[in-house]
């Protein structure tokens, strides 16, 4: 039955080469922990992506309860954490996932760096990877404000004060992020929510696509 459905679609759309191009590729011996245990360092990139998927899924569920508004943001998080079934676990996954993501990303970056895997012809992919690192840090910074508790509020105040000290564009940068040159309030929360949920993920997905396409084009770096 399944085979028939597959054949029916394949006859009309020719999907076999599409998924085979993505899925059917070789895994060299030197990256396979089944053959060389020390090759577990090659798992860091995949695990980073895995944690990122956890972040996306848990984040999607969080938005079902979260209200991006200074009157209700904290109350919605509190409600989620204390009243909603398993809400504490979903929020916990998103909260701790952010930290685990940074750790895995750092490990992956260090693996690539110390193996010199960014050398020709893989310079572009390294740069895309560093941009992904910056975006993840940006997601961490904007996500920190969203529960609208004291630590979120005052940490964001410090962050925006630092942004303001950038020469020439500082005040504009702060206004862009906070929605007002002086007030950290309703507009700030709305902007950080938009940046956290729409702008940065959009940029992240685009960069991730480039990152993965380049890996498949160039293959994984050979053994040292």
């Amino acid at each position, binding site marked *: 039955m399944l085979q028939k459905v597959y054949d029916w679609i394949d*006859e*009309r759309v020719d999907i076999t080469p599409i998924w085979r191009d993505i899925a059917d590729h070789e895994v060299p011996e030197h990256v396979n922990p089944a053959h060389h245990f020390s090759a577990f360092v090659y798992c860091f990139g995949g695990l980073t992506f895995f944690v990122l998927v956890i972040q996306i899924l848990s984040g999607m569920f969080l938005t079902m309860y979260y209200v991006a508004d200074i009157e209700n943001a904290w109350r919605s998080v509190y409600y989620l*954490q204390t009243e909603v079934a398993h809400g504490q*676990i979903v929020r916990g996954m998103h909260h*701790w996932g952010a930290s685990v993501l940074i750790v895995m990303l750092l490990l992956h970056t260090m693996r690539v760096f110390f193996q010199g*895997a960014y050398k*020709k012809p893989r310079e572009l992919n*390294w740069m895309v990877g560093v941009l992904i690192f910056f975006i993840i840090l940006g997601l961490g910074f904007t996500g920190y404000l969203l529960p609208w508790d*004291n630590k979120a509020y005052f940490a964001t105040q410090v962050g925006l004060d630092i942004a303001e000290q950038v020469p020439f564009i500082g005040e504009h940068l702060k206004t862009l992020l906070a929605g007002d040159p002086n007030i950290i309030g309703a507009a700030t929360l709305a902007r950080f929510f938009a940046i956290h949920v729409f702008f940065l993920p959009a940029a992240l997905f685009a960069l991730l696509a480039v990152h993965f396409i380049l890996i498949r084009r160039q293959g994984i770096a050979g053994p040292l």
Partner: protein
Amino acid sequence: MKRGKGMQFVGDSRISAKRTPNIPKDYSEYPGRTEAFWPNFLLKEWLVGAVFLIGFLCLVLAHPPPLEGLADPTTIGYIPLPDWYFLFLYQLLKYPFASGKFVLFGIIIIPGLAFGALFLAPFLDNGTGRRPPQRPIAVAMMILALASVVWLTYESAAAVDWEARAEANKPIPPDAVTIDVSDPGYEFYKNSCAMCHGDALEGLSAPSLIGTEYTAEEIAIVSREGIDGDPGMPADAFKGTDEELELLVEFIMSVNEEFAE
């Protein structure tokens, strides 16, 4: 797309009538013990992922995500802290060479150089050798940078009493309890405790008393003898009689009972 004479298409589409055979590539000619990603290696990856997920969920279950009280811009003396992965940047701004007159070093020049070098690493370290001994400068710089980040993070985090911070900023809904000012114990509370713990027990310079973990007996003792340690609590905060102390403790416990409901 292949084009040429004799091509047959499905209907009027661009899909070739000759279907691509769905057979896996042959990896036997590849060097070493090369394996197919699909499905052989992917299955193993899922196993690793499953183990990782179990460990991660254990972490999540063991540590509920922290939440502090509702943001209040008028809170006095709150010491802001970023999440741990920004602590090193935050700590950098505390050194005289990166703050005050030299703040541009702290916020632009030093982080800019470090992250700029990270971004442009393939062009700064452009030799052909990949092994660490073949590129001592790049590896040394990275180890130095890593050590600096670890050191700065440690310097920043070691001075923080995380448990005391969490204790002083417990999440209490602003309308969780109503304070009965006609309670016979409220008068003593107002005179002895409200200065530090707030008129509604919500906490000011001292932690909130709503949701306290102390028992009635312990509160009675603490009111007389205080708490050792830093910041602790001074002794003799309450100077009334034992009967008055009993009313005070009953009042505090009644608020907590209401909160617990």
